[in-house]
Protein backbone atom coordinates (compact mmCIF):
# COMPACT_ATOMS: atom_id res chain seq x y z
CA UNK A 1 0.00 0.00 0.00
CA UNK A 2 1.45 3.40 -0.89
CA UNK A 3 2.04 5.76 1.98
CA UNK A 4 -0.47 8.46 2.69
CA UNK A 5 -3.56 7.11 0.95
CA UNK A 6 -6.55 8.20 2.94
CA UNK A 7 -8.99 5.42 3.62
CA UNK A 8 -12.47 6.57 4.47
CA UNK A 9 -14.03 4.83 7.39
CA UNK A 10 -17.50 3.73 6.53
CA UNK A 11 -19.80 1.49 8.48
CA UNK A 12 -19.64 -2.04 7.11
CA UNK A 13 -23.27 -2.38 6.15
CA UNK A 14 -23.07 0.82 4.15
CA UNK A 15 -20.11 -0.21 2.03
CA UNK A 16 -20.52 -2.71 -0.74
CA UNK A 17 -19.04 -3.17 -4.14
CA UNK A 18 -21.44 -5.10 -6.32
CA UNK A 19 -24.59 -3.34 -5.20
CA UNK A 20 -22.93 0.07 -5.43
CA UNK A 21 -21.79 -0.75 -8.95
CA UNK A 22 -25.27 -1.84 -9.95
CA UNK A 23 -26.86 1.31 -8.57
CA UNK A 24 -24.27 3.34 -10.47
CA UNK A 25 -25.20 1.51 -13.63
CA UNK A 26 -28.86 2.20 -12.99
CA UNK A 27 -28.01 5.90 -12.75
CA UNK A 28 -26.13 5.93 -16.05
CA UNK A 29 -28.98 4.00 -17.69
CA UNK A 30 -31.39 6.64 -16.46
CA UNK A 31 -29.28 9.33 -18.11
CA UNK A 32 -28.98 7.20 -21.25
CA UNK A 33 -32.75 7.07 -21.62
CA UNK A 34 -33.21 10.70 -20.65
CA UNK A 35 -34.17 12.63 -23.77
CA UNK A 36 -33.26 15.98 -22.27
CA UNK A 37 -29.81 16.69 -23.73
CA UNK A 38 -27.76 19.75 -22.91
CA UNK A 39 -25.97 20.01 -26.26
CA UNK A 40 -26.91 22.98 -28.41
CA UNK A 41 -26.84 22.06 -32.11
CA UNK A 42 -24.65 25.04 -32.88
CA UNK A 43 -25.06 26.28 -36.42
CA UNK A 44 -28.82 25.63 -36.27
CA UNK A 45 -29.45 26.54 -32.64
CA UNK A 46 -27.71 29.31 -30.82
CA UNK A 47 -27.39 30.27 -27.23
CA UNK A 48 -29.31 33.50 -26.57
CA UNK A 49 -26.86 36.38 -26.13
CA UNK A 50 -27.07 38.82 -23.27
CA UNK A 51 -28.42 42.26 -24.27
CA UNK A 52 -25.11 43.62 -22.95
CA UNK A 53 -22.99 41.33 -25.14
CA UNK A 54 -20.13 43.30 -26.71
CA UNK A 55 -19.14 41.85 -30.08
CA UNK A 56 -18.54 42.88 -33.67
CA UNK A 57 -18.82 46.63 -34.22
CA UNK A 58 -21.53 48.35 -36.15
CA UNK A 59 -21.84 51.92 -37.45
CA UNK A 60 -25.39 53.25 -37.41
CA UNK A 61 -26.62 55.35 -40.31
CA UNK A 62 -29.00 58.26 -40.76
CA UNK A 63 -32.18 57.96 -42.83
CA UNK A 64 -30.39 59.02 -46.01
CA UNK A 65 -27.87 56.21 -45.61
CA UNK A 66 -24.91 58.20 -44.35
CA UNK A 67 -22.86 57.28 -41.28
CA UNK A 68 -23.94 59.07 -38.13
CA UNK A 69 -20.28 59.67 -37.29
CA UNK A 70 -19.21 63.31 -37.12
CA UNK A 71 -15.48 62.51 -36.83
CA UNK A 72 -15.19 64.17 -33.43
CA UNK A 73 -12.21 61.93 -32.60
CA UNK A 74 -13.44 60.80 -29.17
CA UNK A 75 -13.45 57.08 -29.93
CA UNK A 76 -9.83 56.81 -31.14
CA UNK A 77 -8.86 58.85 -28.08
CA UNK A 78 -10.68 56.67 -25.57
CA UNK A 79 -9.79 53.36 -27.23
CA UNK A 80 -7.38 51.55 -24.87
CA UNK A 81 -6.24 49.16 -27.60
CA UNK A 82 -5.61 51.86 -30.18
CA UNK A 83 -7.53 49.98 -32.81
CA UNK A 84 -9.62 52.77 -34.32
CA UNK A 85 -8.11 54.79 -37.14
CA UNK A 86 -9.99 58.00 -37.95
CA UNK A 87 -9.16 60.71 -40.51
CA UNK A 88 -11.72 63.55 -40.26
CA UNK A 89 -12.99 65.48 -43.24
CA UNK A 90 -15.33 68.46 -43.73
CA UNK A 91 -17.74 69.13 -46.58
CA UNK A 92 -18.64 72.54 -48.13
CA UNK A 93 -21.42 73.11 -45.53
CA UNK A 94 -18.98 72.69 -42.68
CA UNK A 95 -20.30 69.24 -41.65
CA UNK A 96 -17.59 66.93 -40.41
CA UNK A 97 -17.53 63.35 -41.58
CA UNK A 98 -14.96 60.55 -41.46
CA UNK A 99 -12.72 60.34 -44.52
CA UNK A 100 -11.28 57.14 -43.16
CA UNK A 101 -12.76 55.06 -40.34
CA UNK A 102 -11.22 51.67 -39.67
CA UNK A 103 -11.48 49.28 -36.74
CA UNK A 104 -8.96 46.48 -36.40
CA UNK A 105 -11.08 43.72 -34.91
CA UNK A 106 -7.95 41.76 -33.95
CA UNK A 107 -6.60 44.57 -31.78
CA UNK A 108 -9.98 45.43 -30.31
CA UNK A 109 -10.56 44.23 -26.75
CA UNK A 110 -14.33 44.81 -26.94
CA UNK A 111 -14.44 47.07 -23.90
CA UNK A 112 -17.26 49.08 -25.44
CA UNK A 113 -15.74 52.48 -24.51
CA UNK A 114 -16.20 53.69 -28.12
CA UNK A 115 -19.94 53.15 -27.90
CA UNK A 116 -20.06 54.72 -24.46
CA UNK A 117 -18.12 57.81 -25.48
CA UNK A 118 -19.80 58.46 -28.85
CA UNK A 119 -21.92 61.64 -28.66
CA UNK A 120 -23.85 60.82 -31.85
CA UNK A 121 -24.58 57.17 -30.91
CA UNK A 122 -22.91 56.22 -34.17
CA UNK A 123 -20.37 53.50 -33.36
CA UNK A 124 -21.64 50.49 -31.41
CA UNK A 125 -20.43 47.13 -30.29
CA UNK A 126 -22.94 44.51 -31.38
CA UNK A 127 -24.55 41.29 -30.19
CA UNK A 128 -22.68 39.19 -32.72
CA UNK A 129 -19.63 36.93 -32.56
CA UNK A 130 -19.30 34.90 -35.76
CA UNK A 131 -16.37 36.44 -37.61
CA UNK A 132 -14.22 34.57 -40.06
CA UNK A 133 -12.01 35.78 -42.88
CA UNK A 134 -9.47 34.27 -45.22
CA UNK A 135 -6.78 36.83 -44.39
CA UNK A 136 -5.66 38.93 -41.43
CA UNK A 137 -6.29 42.09 -43.48
CA UNK A 138 -9.93 41.10 -43.70
CA UNK A 139 -10.32 41.83 -40.02
CA UNK A 140 -9.66 45.54 -40.48
CA UNK A 141 -13.26 46.66 -40.97
CA UNK A 142 -13.68 49.85 -42.93
CA UNK A 143 -16.62 52.27 -42.73
CA UNK A 144 -18.60 50.54 -45.46
CA UNK A 145 -18.25 47.20 -43.75
CA UNK A 146 -19.24 48.66 -40.40
CA UNK A 147 -22.28 50.32 -41.92
CA UNK A 148 -23.47 47.20 -43.69
CA UNK A 149 -23.68 45.14 -40.47
CA UNK A 150 -27.26 44.49 -39.44
CA UNK A 151 -27.02 42.68 -36.10
CA UNK A 152 -28.58 44.19 -32.95
CA UNK A 153 -26.32 46.46 -30.95
CA UNK A 154 -25.24 46.22 -27.34
CA UNK A 155 -27.31 47.83 -24.61
CA UNK A 156 -24.73 49.43 -22.39
CA UNK A 157 -24.66 49.04 -18.66
CA UNK A 158 -26.69 51.74 -17.04
CA UNK A 159 -25.46 52.82 -13.57
CA UNK A 160 -29.00 53.85 -12.65
CA UNK A 161 -30.29 50.40 -13.49
CA UNK A 162 -27.39 48.04 -12.76
CA UNK A 163 -29.35 44.83 -13.20
CA UNK A 164 -30.80 45.78 -16.55
CA UNK A 165 -34.39 45.94 -15.40
Amino acid sequence: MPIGVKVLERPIDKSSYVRATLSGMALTLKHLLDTDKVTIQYPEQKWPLSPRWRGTHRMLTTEDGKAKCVACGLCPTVCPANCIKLVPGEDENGNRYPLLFEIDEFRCIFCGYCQEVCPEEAIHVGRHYENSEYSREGFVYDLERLMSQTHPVCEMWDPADPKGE
Partner: protein
Amino acid sequence: MIALLQQVATQASGVEHLPPPESGGVWFLATAVKILVLFTIYMVGVMLVIWAERRICAFIQDRRGPNRVGPHGLLQSVADGVKNIMKEETYPAQAYLPLFVLAPVMAFIPALLTWAVIPYGAPWVSRWGTIDMAIAPLPIGFLFILSIASLGVYGIVLAGWSSNNKYSLLGGLRSSAQMISYEISMGMSTIPVLILAGNVSLGRIVEQQAGRGLHWNVLSCTIAFVVFMVAAFAETNRVPFDLPEAESELVAGYHAEYSAMKFSMFFIAEYANVMTASALMSTLFFGGWDLPFTLWDNVAPHTLLKTLVTFAFIWAKILFFVFVFIWVRWTLPRFRYDQLMALGWKFMLPLILAYVVVVAGATLVLDAIGFHPASWQFSVIMLALNIVLVVILFGVVDRGRLVSPAYSRLDKRNLDKLRRLDRARVRPAAFTGGGPA
Protein backbone atom coordinates in the same frame (compact mmCIF):
# COMPACT_ATOMS: atom_id res chain seq x y z
CA MET B 1 -0.96 -33.39 -26.42
CA ILE B 2 -3.21 -31.43 -28.73
CA ALA B 3 -3.60 -34.40 -30.99
CA LEU B 4 -4.67 -36.47 -27.99
CA LEU B 5 -7.16 -33.85 -26.88
CA GLN B 6 -8.48 -33.61 -30.40
CA GLN B 7 -8.95 -37.37 -30.51
CA VAL B 8 -10.75 -37.40 -27.16
CA ALA B 9 -12.90 -34.47 -28.16
CA THR B 10 -13.80 -36.01 -31.50
CA GLN B 11 -14.80 -39.26 -29.87
CA ALA B 12 -16.96 -37.45 -27.37
CA SER B 13 -18.60 -35.11 -29.82
CA GLY B 14 -18.59 -37.14 -33.00
CA VAL B 15 -22.05 -38.59 -32.49
CA GLU B 16 -23.64 -35.20 -32.00
CA HIS B 17 -22.37 -33.54 -35.13
CA LEU B 18 -24.08 -33.69 -38.47
CA PRO B 19 -21.98 -35.16 -41.28
CA PRO B 20 -19.83 -32.71 -43.21
CA PRO B 21 -20.65 -32.03 -46.86
CA GLU B 22 -19.54 -34.77 -49.18
CA SER B 23 -17.90 -32.81 -51.92
CA GLY B 24 -14.66 -30.94 -51.28
CA GLY B 25 -15.65 -28.20 -53.68
CA VAL B 26 -18.85 -27.38 -51.80
CA TRP B 27 -16.95 -27.34 -48.52
CA PHE B 28 -14.35 -25.01 -49.98
CA LEU B 29 -16.95 -22.68 -51.49
CA ALA B 30 -19.06 -22.66 -48.33
CA THR B 31 -16.01 -21.86 -46.19
CA ALA B 32 -14.98 -19.05 -48.51
CA VAL B 33 -18.49 -17.56 -48.40
CA LYS B 34 -18.64 -17.90 -44.60
CA ILE B 35 -15.29 -16.17 -44.19
CA LEU B 36 -16.32 -13.38 -46.54
CA VAL B 37 -19.72 -12.83 -44.91
CA LEU B 38 -18.43 -12.97 -41.37
CA PHE B 39 -15.42 -10.76 -42.05
CA THR B 40 -17.65 -8.15 -43.67
CA ILE B 41 -20.17 -8.21 -40.85
CA TYR B 42 -17.35 -8.10 -38.34
CA MET B 43 -15.57 -5.11 -39.85
CA VAL B 44 -18.77 -3.16 -40.44
CA GLY B 45 -19.77 -4.19 -36.92
CA VAL B 46 -16.56 -2.78 -35.44
CA MET B 47 -17.24 0.47 -37.26
CA LEU B 48 -20.78 0.64 -35.94
CA VAL B 49 -19.72 -0.34 -32.43
CA ILE B 50 -17.28 2.56 -32.36
CA TRP B 51 -20.12 4.82 -33.44
CA ALA B 52 -22.42 3.25 -30.83
CA GLU B 53 -19.82 3.72 -28.13
CA ARG B 54 -19.56 7.41 -28.90
CA ARG B 55 -23.31 7.88 -29.11
CA ILE B 56 -24.09 5.91 -25.95
CA CYS B 57 -21.35 7.63 -24.00
CA ALA B 58 -22.76 10.95 -25.14
CA PHE B 59 -26.28 9.97 -24.10
CA ILE B 60 -25.06 8.82 -20.69
CA GLN B 61 -23.39 12.21 -20.24
CA ASP B 62 -26.51 14.03 -21.48
CA ARG B 63 -24.84 14.98 -24.75
CA ARG B 64 -25.77 14.04 -28.31
CA GLY B 65 -22.58 12.55 -29.73
CA PRO B 66 -21.61 12.40 -33.39
CA ASN B 67 -24.77 13.01 -35.44
CA ARG B 68 -23.55 14.94 -38.46
CA VAL B 69 -21.94 12.46 -40.86
CA GLY B 70 -24.70 10.40 -42.42
CA PRO B 71 -28.06 9.62 -40.79
CA HIS B 72 -27.61 9.86 -36.99
CA GLY B 73 -23.87 10.08 -37.53
CA LEU B 74 -23.66 6.47 -38.71
CA LEU B 75 -20.87 7.23 -41.16
CA GLN B 76 -18.71 8.96 -38.56
CA SER B 77 -16.33 6.00 -38.37
CA VAL B 78 -15.98 6.00 -42.15
CA ALA B 79 -15.00 9.66 -42.05
CA ASP B 80 -12.52 8.97 -39.25
CA GLY B 81 -11.09 6.03 -41.15
CA VAL B 82 -10.59 8.10 -44.30
CA LYS B 83 -8.93 10.77 -42.22
CA ASN B 84 -6.61 8.29 -40.57
CA ILE B 85 -5.58 6.74 -43.88
CA MET B 86 -4.76 10.16 -45.28
CA LYS B 87 -2.75 11.17 -42.24
CA GLU B 88 1.02 11.10 -42.10
CA GLU B 89 2.52 8.16 -40.24
CA THR B 90 5.17 9.20 -37.79
CA TYR B 91 7.90 6.91 -36.55
CA PRO B 92 9.79 7.74 -33.36
CA ALA B 93 13.50 8.05 -34.07
CA GLN B 94 14.50 5.52 -31.40
CA ALA B 95 11.74 2.99 -32.07
CA TYR B 96 12.56 -0.55 -33.13
CA LEU B 97 10.79 -0.35 -36.47
CA PRO B 98 10.09 -4.00 -37.37
CA LEU B 99 8.17 -4.64 -34.17
CA PHE B 100 6.74 -1.14 -34.12
CA VAL B 101 5.08 -1.84 -37.46
CA LEU B 102 4.14 -5.40 -36.61
CA ALA B 103 2.56 -4.69 -33.22
CA PRO B 104 -0.79 -3.24 -34.44
CA VAL B 105 -1.26 -6.31 -36.61
CA MET B 106 -0.46 -8.61 -33.72
CA ALA B 107 -3.02 -6.85 -31.57
CA PHE B 108 -5.67 -7.16 -34.24
CA ILE B 109 -5.30 -10.66 -35.69
CA PRO B 110 -5.98 -12.76 -32.54
CA ALA B 111 -9.32 -11.03 -31.99
CA LEU B 112 -10.25 -11.87 -35.56
CA LEU B 113 -9.01 -15.47 -35.40
CA THR B 114 -11.21 -16.34 -32.45
CA TRP B 115 -14.24 -15.94 -34.65
CA ALA B 116 -13.27 -18.91 -36.75
CA VAL B 117 -14.57 -21.38 -34.16
CA ILE B 118 -17.68 -19.63 -32.85
CA PRO B 119 -20.84 -21.27 -34.17
CA TYR B 120 -23.14 -18.48 -35.27
CA GLY B 121 -26.17 -20.30 -36.56
CA ALA B 122 -27.95 -23.62 -36.75
CA PRO B 123 -26.34 -25.92 -39.34
CA TRP B 124 -27.99 -25.74 -42.74
CA VAL B 125 -28.73 -29.03 -44.43
CA SER B 126 -28.65 -27.84 -48.00
CA ARG B 127 -29.06 -29.95 -51.09
CA TRP B 128 -25.28 -29.88 -51.45
CA GLY B 129 -24.62 -31.28 -47.99
CA THR B 130 -24.64 -30.07 -44.39
CA ILE B 131 -23.03 -26.71 -43.93
CA ASP B 132 -21.86 -26.04 -40.39
CA MET B 133 -22.31 -22.41 -39.39
CA ALA B 134 -18.86 -21.94 -37.96
CA ILE B 135 -15.92 -21.23 -40.22
CA ALA B 136 -13.88 -23.97 -38.58
CA PRO B 137 -16.03 -26.19 -36.31
CA LEU B 138 -13.01 -27.42 -34.35
CA PRO B 139 -13.62 -30.23 -31.87
CA ILE B 140 -11.17 -28.44 -29.55
CA GLY B 141 -12.89 -25.10 -30.13
CA PHE B 142 -12.61 -23.78 -26.64
CA LEU B 143 -8.93 -24.64 -26.21
CA PHE B 144 -8.29 -22.86 -29.49
CA ILE B 145 -9.96 -19.74 -28.12
CA LEU B 146 -7.94 -19.83 -24.90
CA SER B 147 -4.67 -20.19 -26.77
CA ILE B 148 -5.45 -17.51 -29.37
CA ALA B 149 -6.84 -15.06 -26.83
CA SER B 150 -3.59 -15.18 -24.87
CA LEU B 151 -1.72 -14.12 -28.00
CA GLY B 152 -3.50 -10.76 -27.93
CA VAL B 153 -1.18 -9.49 -25.20
CA TYR B 154 1.84 -9.67 -27.49
CA GLY B 155 0.62 -6.87 -29.72
CA ILE B 156 0.26 -4.56 -26.75
CA VAL B 157 3.50 -5.53 -25.01
CA LEU B 158 5.53 -5.27 -28.20
CA ALA B 159 3.92 -1.95 -29.09
CA GLY B 160 4.90 -0.64 -25.66
CA TRP B 161 8.42 -1.99 -25.86
CA SER B 162 9.26 -1.09 -29.45
CA SER B 163 8.08 2.53 -29.06
CA ASN B 164 11.09 3.16 -26.81
CA ASN B 165 9.04 5.44 -24.63
CA LYS B 166 8.81 5.02 -20.87
CA TYR B 167 5.06 5.53 -20.75
CA SER B 168 4.46 3.07 -23.55
CA LEU B 169 6.70 0.54 -21.86
CA LEU B 170 4.86 0.94 -18.56
CA GLY B 171 1.57 0.47 -20.39
CA GLY B 172 2.85 -2.68 -22.05
CA LEU B 173 4.18 -4.06 -18.76
CA ARG B 174 0.92 -3.40 -16.99
CA SER B 175 -1.01 -5.03 -19.76
CA SER B 176 1.10 -8.19 -19.65
CA ALA B 177 0.68 -8.49 -15.88
CA GLN B 178 -3.03 -7.80 -16.15
CA MET B 179 -3.68 -10.20 -18.99
CA ILE B 180 -1.77 -13.04 -17.35
CA SER B 181 -3.56 -12.52 -14.04
CA TYR B 182 -7.01 -12.43 -15.53
CA GLU B 183 -6.45 -15.16 -18.07
CA ILE B 184 -6.26 -17.62 -15.18
CA SER B 185 -9.64 -16.55 -13.82
CA MET B 186 -11.06 -16.52 -17.33
CA GLY B 187 -9.90 -20.05 -18.09
CA MET B 188 -11.06 -21.28 -14.70
CA SER B 189 -14.48 -19.67 -15.04
CA THR B 190 -15.21 -21.72 -18.13
CA ILE B 191 -14.51 -25.01 -16.37
CA PRO B 192 -18.03 -25.24 -14.88
CA VAL B 193 -19.40 -24.82 -18.40
CA LEU B 194 -17.11 -27.51 -19.70
CA ILE B 195 -18.15 -29.79 -16.82
CA LEU B 196 -21.81 -29.38 -17.76
CA ALA B 197 -21.17 -29.81 -21.47
CA GLY B 198 -18.68 -32.62 -20.97
CA ASN B 199 -16.82 -31.32 -23.99
CA VAL B 200 -14.66 -28.47 -25.23
CA SER B 201 -16.32 -28.16 -28.64
CA LEU B 202 -18.30 -24.92 -28.86
CA GLY B 203 -20.91 -26.61 -31.03
CA ARG B 204 -21.48 -29.14 -28.28
CA ILE B 205 -21.65 -26.41 -25.63
CA VAL B 206 -24.42 -24.70 -27.59
CA GLU B 207 -26.28 -27.99 -28.08
CA GLN B 208 -26.06 -28.71 -24.36
CA GLN B 209 -27.84 -25.42 -23.65
CA ALA B 210 -30.63 -26.17 -26.08
CA GLY B 211 -33.88 -27.51 -24.79
CA ARG B 212 -37.59 -27.04 -24.31
CA GLY B 213 -36.99 -24.72 -21.37
CA LEU B 214 -34.27 -22.26 -20.50
CA HIS B 215 -31.08 -24.27 -20.15
CA TRP B 216 -28.64 -21.43 -20.53
CA ASN B 217 -25.44 -21.87 -18.59
CA VAL B 218 -25.82 -18.49 -16.98
CA LEU B 219 -28.54 -20.04 -14.82
CA SER B 220 -26.53 -23.06 -13.77
CA CYS B 221 -23.10 -21.34 -13.58
CA THR B 222 -24.02 -17.78 -12.57
CA ILE B 223 -20.89 -17.02 -10.59
CA ALA B 224 -18.71 -18.47 -13.34
CA PHE B 225 -20.46 -16.05 -15.71
CA VAL B 226 -19.82 -13.08 -13.44
CA VAL B 227 -16.14 -14.00 -13.11
CA PHE B 228 -15.89 -14.60 -16.85
CA MET B 229 -17.42 -11.23 -17.58
CA VAL B 230 -15.06 -9.39 -15.23
CA ALA B 231 -12.10 -11.27 -16.68
CA ALA B 232 -13.31 -10.50 -20.21
CA PHE B 233 -13.36 -6.80 -19.34
CA ALA B 234 -9.78 -7.11 -18.14
CA GLU B 235 -8.72 -9.12 -21.19
CA THR B 236 -10.11 -6.54 -23.59
CA ASN B 237 -8.42 -3.69 -21.66
CA ARG B 238 -11.68 -1.89 -21.22
CA VAL B 239 -12.57 0.46 -18.41
CA PRO B 240 -12.44 -0.24 -15.44
CA PHE B 241 -9.39 -2.30 -16.40
CA ASP B 242 -7.84 0.02 -18.98
CA LEU B 243 -4.57 0.36 -17.08
CA PRO B 244 -2.42 -0.20 -20.18
CA GLU B 245 -3.92 2.98 -21.60
CA ALA B 246 -4.50 5.04 -18.45
CA GLU B 247 -4.39 8.41 -20.17
CA SER B 248 -4.22 10.29 -16.89
CA GLU B 249 -0.94 8.73 -15.81
CA LEU B 250 0.59 7.12 -18.92
CA VAL B 251 -0.42 9.64 -21.62
CA ALA B 252 -1.97 6.96 -23.83
CA GLY B 253 0.03 3.97 -22.62
CA TYR B 254 1.18 1.51 -25.21
CA HIS B 255 -0.12 3.45 -28.22
CA ALA B 256 1.24 6.87 -27.24
CA GLU B 257 3.72 6.83 -30.13
CA TYR B 258 1.34 5.58 -32.80
CA SER B 259 -0.35 7.81 -35.31
CA ALA B 260 -2.71 7.60 -38.26
CA MET B 261 -3.89 4.14 -39.35
CA LYS B 262 -1.60 2.27 -36.95
CA PHE B 263 -3.34 3.95 -34.07
CA SER B 264 -6.64 3.08 -35.71
CA MET B 265 -5.57 -0.54 -35.83
CA PHE B 266 -5.26 -0.61 -32.03
CA PHE B 267 -8.62 1.04 -31.79
CA ILE B 268 -10.18 -1.49 -34.15
CA ALA B 269 -8.45 -4.29 -32.23
CA GLU B 270 -9.99 -3.10 -28.99
CA TYR B 271 -13.50 -3.13 -30.43
CA ALA B 272 -12.86 -6.39 -32.23
CA ASN B 273 -11.90 -7.83 -28.86
CA VAL B 274 -15.08 -6.46 -27.34
CA MET B 275 -17.17 -8.18 -30.00
CA THR B 276 -15.23 -11.41 -29.60
CA ALA B 277 -15.68 -11.37 -25.83
CA SER B 278 -19.39 -10.68 -26.33
CA ALA B 279 -19.66 -13.58 -28.73
CA LEU B 280 -17.91 -15.85 -26.23
CA MET B 281 -20.21 -14.79 -23.42
CA SER B 282 -23.26 -15.42 -25.60
CA THR B 283 -21.96 -18.79 -26.71
CA LEU B 284 -20.70 -20.12 -23.40
CA PHE B 285 -23.33 -18.75 -21.05
CA PHE B 286 -26.32 -17.54 -23.05
CA GLY B 287 -26.99 -20.45 -25.33
CA GLY B 288 -25.17 -19.23 -28.43
CA TRP B 289 -27.49 -19.33 -31.40
CA ASP B 290 -30.07 -21.40 -29.58
CA LEU B 291 -33.61 -20.04 -29.20
CA PRO B 292 -34.89 -20.65 -25.67
CA PHE B 293 -38.24 -22.31 -24.82
CA THR B 294 -38.38 -24.17 -28.12
CA LEU B 295 -36.74 -27.03 -29.89
CA TRP B 296 -37.78 -25.69 -33.29
CA ASP B 297 -34.24 -24.60 -34.13
CA ASN B 298 -32.57 -27.80 -32.95
CA VAL B 299 -34.52 -30.48 -34.85
CA ALA B 300 -34.71 -31.48 -38.48
CA PRO B 301 -35.48 -30.20 -41.08
CA HIS B 302 -32.51 -27.82 -40.86
CA THR B 303 -33.70 -25.20 -43.30
CA LEU B 304 -32.08 -21.95 -44.32
CA LEU B 305 -34.78 -20.06 -42.43
CA LYS B 306 -33.72 -21.63 -39.13
CA THR B 307 -30.11 -20.75 -39.86
CA LEU B 308 -30.98 -17.13 -40.53
CA VAL B 309 -33.23 -16.81 -37.47
CA THR B 310 -30.59 -18.27 -35.16
CA PHE B 311 -27.95 -16.09 -36.84
CA ALA B 312 -30.01 -13.01 -36.06
CA PHE B 313 -30.56 -14.26 -32.54
CA ILE B 314 -26.89 -14.71 -31.67
CA TRP B 315 -26.18 -11.27 -33.09
CA ALA B 316 -28.87 -9.81 -30.86
CA LYS B 317 -27.11 -11.38 -27.88
CA ILE B 318 -23.70 -10.18 -29.03
CA LEU B 319 -24.97 -6.64 -29.47
CA PHE B 320 -26.53 -6.75 -26.03
CA PHE B 321 -23.18 -7.63 -24.47
CA VAL B 322 -21.44 -4.98 -26.53
CA PHE B 323 -23.91 -2.56 -25.04
CA VAL B 324 -23.08 -3.83 -21.54
CA PHE B 325 -19.38 -3.29 -22.25
CA ILE B 326 -20.05 0.30 -23.27
CA TRP B 327 -22.45 0.87 -20.41
CA VAL B 328 -19.96 -0.33 -17.80
CA ARG B 329 -17.20 1.72 -19.36
CA TRP B 330 -19.11 4.95 -18.87
CA THR B 331 -20.14 4.05 -15.34
CA LEU B 332 -17.04 2.89 -13.51
CA PRO B 333 -13.76 4.67 -12.85
CA ARG B 334 -10.43 2.95 -13.45
CA PHE B 335 -8.90 0.72 -10.76
CA ARG B 336 -5.61 1.46 -9.14
CA TYR B 337 -2.90 -1.02 -10.03
CA ASP B 338 -2.77 -2.77 -6.65
CA GLN B 339 -6.57 -3.00 -6.64
CA LEU B 340 -6.46 -4.66 -10.02
CA MET B 341 -3.99 -7.27 -8.86
CA ALA B 342 -5.81 -7.82 -5.57
CA LEU B 343 -9.12 -8.35 -7.36
CA GLY B 344 -7.60 -10.80 -9.79
CA TRP B 345 -5.44 -12.88 -7.47
CA LYS B 346 -6.94 -12.52 -4.03
CA PHE B 347 -10.63 -12.46 -4.84
CA MET B 348 -11.54 -13.83 -8.24
CA LEU B 349 -9.13 -16.74 -8.39
CA PRO B 350 -10.03 -18.26 -4.98
CA LEU B 351 -13.70 -17.61 -5.71
CA ILE B 352 -13.70 -19.38 -9.04
CA LEU B 353 -11.60 -22.27 -7.70
CA ALA B 354 -14.12 -22.79 -4.94
CA TYR B 355 -16.96 -22.49 -7.43
CA VAL B 356 -15.44 -25.09 -9.72
CA VAL B 357 -15.36 -27.47 -6.74
CA VAL B 358 -18.99 -26.64 -5.91
CA VAL B 359 -20.23 -27.19 -9.47
CA ALA B 360 -18.19 -30.34 -9.91
CA GLY B 361 -19.43 -31.67 -6.57
CA ALA B 362 -23.04 -30.81 -7.35
CA THR B 363 -22.81 -32.47 -10.75
CA LEU B 364 -21.27 -35.56 -9.23
CA VAL B 365 -23.91 -35.81 -6.51
CA LEU B 366 -26.80 -35.17 -8.90
CA ASP B 367 -25.39 -37.69 -11.33
CA ALA B 368 -25.11 -40.24 -8.55
CA ILE B 369 -28.74 -39.59 -7.53
CA GLY B 370 -29.72 -40.11 -11.14
CA PHE B 371 -30.35 -36.67 -12.63
CA HIS B 372 -28.60 -36.35 -15.97
CA PRO B 373 -27.15 -32.87 -16.75
CA ALA B 374 -29.67 -32.56 -19.59
CA SER B 375 -32.73 -33.16 -17.41
CA TRP B 376 -34.88 -30.32 -16.14
CA GLN B 377 -34.48 -31.42 -12.51
CA PHE B 378 -30.74 -30.92 -12.84
CA SER B 379 -31.24 -27.39 -14.18
CA VAL B 380 -33.69 -26.47 -11.43
CA ILE B 381 -31.42 -27.75 -8.65
CA MET B 382 -28.42 -25.96 -10.12
CA LEU B 383 -30.47 -22.76 -10.47
CA ALA B 384 -31.52 -22.96 -6.80
CA LEU B 385 -27.92 -23.58 -5.75
CA ASN B 386 -26.76 -20.57 -7.75
CA ILE B 387 -29.43 -18.29 -6.35
CA VAL B 388 -28.28 -19.21 -2.84
CA LEU B 389 -24.62 -18.64 -3.75
CA VAL B 390 -25.30 -15.30 -5.46
CA VAL B 391 -27.31 -14.06 -2.48
CA ILE B 392 -24.52 -15.12 -0.12
CA LEU B 393 -21.77 -13.63 -2.22
CA PHE B 394 -23.28 -10.33 -3.33
CA GLY B 395 -25.82 -9.80 -0.59
CA VAL B 396 -24.17 -11.00 2.62
CA VAL B 397 -20.42 -11.17 1.99
CA ASP B 398 -20.29 -7.98 -0.03
CA ARG B 399 -19.95 -5.72 2.96
CA GLY B 400 -16.97 -3.80 4.25
CA ARG B 401 -15.16 -4.03 0.92
CA LEU B 402 -14.76 -7.81 1.13
CA VAL B 403 -15.71 -8.23 -2.51
CA SER B 404 -14.18 -5.03 -3.75
CA PRO B 405 -10.85 -4.53 -5.48
CA ALA B 406 -9.75 -2.59 -2.40
CA TYR B 407 -9.99 -5.87 -0.49
CA SER B 408 -6.22 -5.97 -0.03
CA ARG B 409 -6.13 -3.02 2.31
CA LEU B 410 -8.62 -4.48 4.75
CA ASP B 411 -6.41 -6.16 7.35
CA LYS B 412 -7.64 -7.60 10.61
CA ARG B 413 -7.05 -4.42 12.59
CA ASN B 414 -9.03 -2.32 10.12
CA LEU B 415 -11.83 -4.81 10.00
CA ASP B 416 -12.17 -4.73 13.79
CA LYS B 417 -12.18 -0.96 13.68
CA LEU B 418 -14.93 -0.98 11.07
CA ARG B 419 -16.99 -3.42 13.11
CA ARG B 420 -16.67 -1.24 16.20
CA LEU B 421 -17.72 1.74 14.11
CA ASP B 422 -20.70 -0.23 12.92
CA ARG B 423 -21.82 -1.10 16.43
CA ALA B 424 -21.28 2.40 17.77
CA ARG B 425 -23.26 4.04 15.01
CA VAL B 426 -26.63 5.39 16.11
CA ARG B 427 -29.19 5.16 13.38
CA PRO B 428 -30.94 8.45 12.66
CA ALA B 429 -34.65 8.40 13.41
CA ALA B 430 -35.56 9.00 9.78
CA PHE B 431 -34.08 5.66 8.79
CA THR B 432 -35.60 3.56 11.55
CA GLY B 433 -39.18 4.76 11.49
CA GLY B 434 -40.01 4.08 7.88
CA GLY B 435 -43.42 5.74 8.07
CA PRO B 436 -44.24 9.26 6.94
CA ALA B 437 -43.39 11.98 9.44
